[in-house]
Structure formats: C-alpha cells, structure tokens
C-alpha cells in the first residue's frame, strides 16, 4: 500500500516536473511523438519503466500545445484590421463580423488590457481632415466593440492620418489596405 502510494506520488511528481521542464522547450515535433506514445502507454506500469514518463510527458505536452494555441489567439487581434470605404467612417456590412470577432477575442483573452485603436487613411486629401477621418473610423470601431460588450474604459483611440501606410503603391488595392483601423494591446 505504501509502495503504491509512493509510486502514485512519484507519478504525480514526475507529471509536475515534466510540465515545468518541458514548458521551456518548443519542440515542433513534440505533438507527433505525443500522439504515438499516448496510444501505447499503460498507466499502471508507468512508475517502473521509461514508458510512464513518456506517457505522463505526453499529457503534459498535449497541455502545452493547447497553451501554445491560445498564445496564437492573443496576437491575432493585433494582426486584424477593419477596412473602410473611400471617404467613409461607417462600419461596412462585410466588416461587422470582423469587429464581432475582435470583440470576442478581447473579451476572452484581454478583459483587463488597454487596447489602442489606430485609425488610418489612404493618401487622398489634406492630412488634417484625414487625421479626423482616421479618428472617426477608430471611434466607429470603438462604439461597435462597446455594443458587443467590450469595456469602454479599456479602449483608447489615436489617429495616424496618412502617416502610417502599409503599402505605397498607386493602385486601388493599396489604397483600400490603408483605409483601416488596427489594434495594439497594452501599448
């Protein structure tokens, strides 16, 4: 009985140390190995052979994978943008789902974070008006995020007018890319 308890504690210890040790490593093949080992491991024999270590490690690795996946979602908002029509600051029909997705991500992963909404414009027109247009775009997105349940106090606005283009080609595709609002978390 005592031996069983020892082995159980050993297993638990191995699980915990396995988690700590493996969280520093980013082995891209870890997932593959984990799947194969999980199919063959037998839990009650784990304390006596290397197999249980691998088995426990397999559980830990699987957990790390899910942690890694959440990390990708956190940076996702900063890689997203809401685009606007020429000379407009209202949210387009096709952008409503994007704003909804941003709201969902912010509520799920950044509930207390400060989020800066950066308004941008294409190169047409004089820059002072474009700064205001960029700001109104950011405000439209902010108001919609608030409607979707994001805390208003966490949202800050700034406009860059024409001064922050993502491209400089003279064509409609590039101009459309520059008419956008982007997000920066805890800037």
């Amino acid at each position, binding site marked *: 009985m005592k031996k069983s308890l020892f082995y159980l504690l050993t297993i638990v210890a191995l699980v915990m140390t396995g988690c700590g040790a493996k969280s520093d490593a980013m082995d891209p093949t870890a997932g593959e190995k984990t799947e194969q080992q999980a199919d063959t491991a037998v839990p009650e024999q784990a304390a006596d052979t290397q197999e249980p270590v691998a088995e426990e490690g397999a559980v830990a690795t699987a957990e790390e994978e899910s942690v890694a996946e959440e990390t990708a979602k956190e940076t996702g908002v900063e890689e997203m943008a809401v685009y606007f029509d020429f000379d407009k600051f209202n949210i387009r029909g096709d952008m409503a789902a994007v704003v909804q997705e941003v709201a969902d991500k912010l509520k799920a992963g950044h509930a207390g974070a400060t989020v800066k909404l950066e308004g941008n414009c294409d190169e047409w027109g004089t*820059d002072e008006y474009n700064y205001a247009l960029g700001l109104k775009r950011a405000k439209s997105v902010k108001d919609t995020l608030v409607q979707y349940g994001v805390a208003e106090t966490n949202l800050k606005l700034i*406009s860059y007018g024409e001064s922050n283009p993502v491209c400089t080609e003279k064509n409609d595709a590039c101009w459309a890319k520059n008419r956008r609002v982007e997000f920066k978390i805890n800037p």
Partner: protein
Amino acid sequence: MIQLSVFAADATMDIVKQVRENIKIAVETFSSGKSDVDFSKKIEKMIVADLKVAAVFLVNESDISPKYDSPIPVLQYRNTNTQLLLRVQSIVSGGKYGILADLYDLEHNRKLLAKKYSVSSEERYPFLTHKLTADIAKKLEIEDLGWMEKFVIFAKNTSAKASEIVIGDYSLTFTQTIISGSLSLFPKWRDETQREFFYTEIGDKPTLYRANLYTGKKEKVTTSDGMLVCSDVSRDGNKLLLTMAPDDQPDIYVYDLESKKLTRVTDYKGIDVNGNFVDDDDTIVFVSDRLGGPNIFSKKVNEKAVQQMVFKGRNNNFCTSFKNYIAYVSRDTNNEFSDNAFNIYLISTQTDYIRQLTTTGKNLFPRFSPSGDSMLYIKRFKNESALGIIRLGYNKSFLFPLKTGKLQAIDW
C-alpha cells in the same frame, strides 16, 4: 524649378492693387577669383531663378561686360530695350560666402542699389540672392517679396509612423532637419519673426509643443486623446486654433497661451477641423462635414451660428485665409480607383466670384504669404512631392521638388 502658366488675370483679383510686369533686366555675374568660380555659378543660377519667381521681370543673362567694375555698355543694352542691369560679384573670404550687388537704371543712367550680403556657410547661399531680390522689389516699389528671404518650415513623412520637421529656403535648395526620431507633424510658425513654432508629436498621446528655433528649447503646450493639430495662430501670436479630440470627437478649440484657457468653438458630432482666424481674429473659417461631406464654413468664435462659405464642389477639405480672402482645396473628381484631382480655389468673402488657382494633379495645403500676394502649397505627383508657389497677381506658379520623403504640412 518648373514654371507653369495658369490663366488670365481677372478683374476681381485685387489682392495686388497695382501690378507691374515685364521689366527687362540684364544680369551679369562675376567671380572674384579662380577659387570661387563654382560658387559664382551657383549664385548666377539662383539670382536668375529668384528674379523669374518675382514674376515682374524678363530676365536676360548677360556676359557683355568683362569685369564687375568695368564701364557699363549702356547703348548696347538700350538697343535691346533693357531697362535695368544687375551686376553681382561673388566673394569667398575669411570663412564667409557673400555677394556684392549693384542695380542700375539704364533708362535714367543712375545706380539704384549697392548692396553687400554674406552668410557663414556655403549651404545657405540661396538666402544671399533671395534677400537681394526682395531688396530690389522694395526699391522698385513693386511689392513685398520679404517671404523670399525667410524660412519655410515643413514636415515630411519618411516612412510609416516616422517623419522629420525641416526648415529651408523657399526653393528647397537649402534644407536643415530640426526635428527627427519621432512622428512630428503640422509645424506652424508662431509669428513672422519665425523664432518659435508649434508642432504635434504623435507618441503615446498626441502632444502639442512650442519650440524655439534658435535656443532649441521646447515646451509642452497641451495634449489630447485622438488627434491634436495647431491650425492657425492669431496675429498677436497669443491664441491658437486647435483641432483636438478630448472626447474622441474632433472639434475646434481656441487656446490662450497666456491664460492657458481652452475654449471650445465647435460641437458638431461629425468632423470639424482646420480652423483659421479671419476678421480681426473673432471669426473663424473651418472645414466641417456637417452637411454630408467636407465643406467650408464660418462662425464667430463666441457665437453658435454657422454660415456656409462655399457652395460649389462636393469635397472641400482644407481652407486658409488672408483678410477677406479664403483659399480652399476641392477634390474635383470622385474616383476611388484612380488618381483624383485636388485643386486650389480662391474666394473673397465680399463677392461671389470663385477663382481656380490650379488645374491638374493633387494640390494641397495652401498658405498665403504674410503680405497675401503669393501662395505656398504642396503638389503631389506620382511618387514625388514638391513645394509650389503661386504668384497671385501674375498668374504664374513654380514648383520645387523635394529630394526625399513626402511633404505632409508646410508653413511660411
């Protein structure tokens, strides 16, 4: 330098009361020795350009006389109906770069002007001929060309979220970066002395700074969430018209530098920007989209009523003023998918006439000269931008390309 002819003068254009044109002037330039031959050639090119930009002269570069102090061949010049002779000799001595200049009235056989100018560095040589041209205009009582000898100040975008603030001569031959390493935009002189200027730094939060060009000292004036631009300064230099957005809403405010009091001037829920003082600084003209698209309006600073000023064009997105005159930028095409034309128009608050000042391309950010007879603006074409000058009384305009970067805002 590129010269463009715009179009004929019109009877309502009375910014310049009396216009003199086509004064025939011969220009002779000399070096003082072999060591400054190259410098002399730069001077020659610049003085000819300055006289052409003055727009009153028909300029003839001459090499008739062998030396700066040789007798003047008056008869030879009179045979070509030349009215004036300008002789310029360059001097490089004791670490200074200078010119001697004599202006002769060939019709009446008299010397009108004898001047000597110098600068401490060669790169500033354009100011030698700019000052000479301004002094010639003053002597001939043509008009005030004092703007020629002053700095222009501008912001240029260098890359995404990066810019520089630069001073230069009007032809951009001389330029000096004075602010870099940040996103600093919308520079605006405090007054004609050009000792201080305001600008916006977009850091974590837009901040308006007041900087001294000669001491390098800068101090924070105010900050705002969202955006912050100094659009205009009152004539006494003590009140600023700001566009700011403390509630995420762009509106126009008056900021008193002495009392530090901020007074809100507009409160429309859309876009109100780009205020400019008119009529003894108790009225402003500004851009607002309160009727569906950007247009030009006016209101008294302390009253609520707003008056529409321009009734032509769907997108009038910038304005500036001088006494009773308003210049504004109108987008003349509405094409999302190709080049659009932005042109500058001039109106008087006293008449219904509209005068178109540019005809093609993207012409932005007009600024009247301090005397109102010329206009500075930004011209964008393809991937380049240029500083433009319109000589309002003469219907001539000139372009000076910027070597690198894209002009964002200018002032003189």
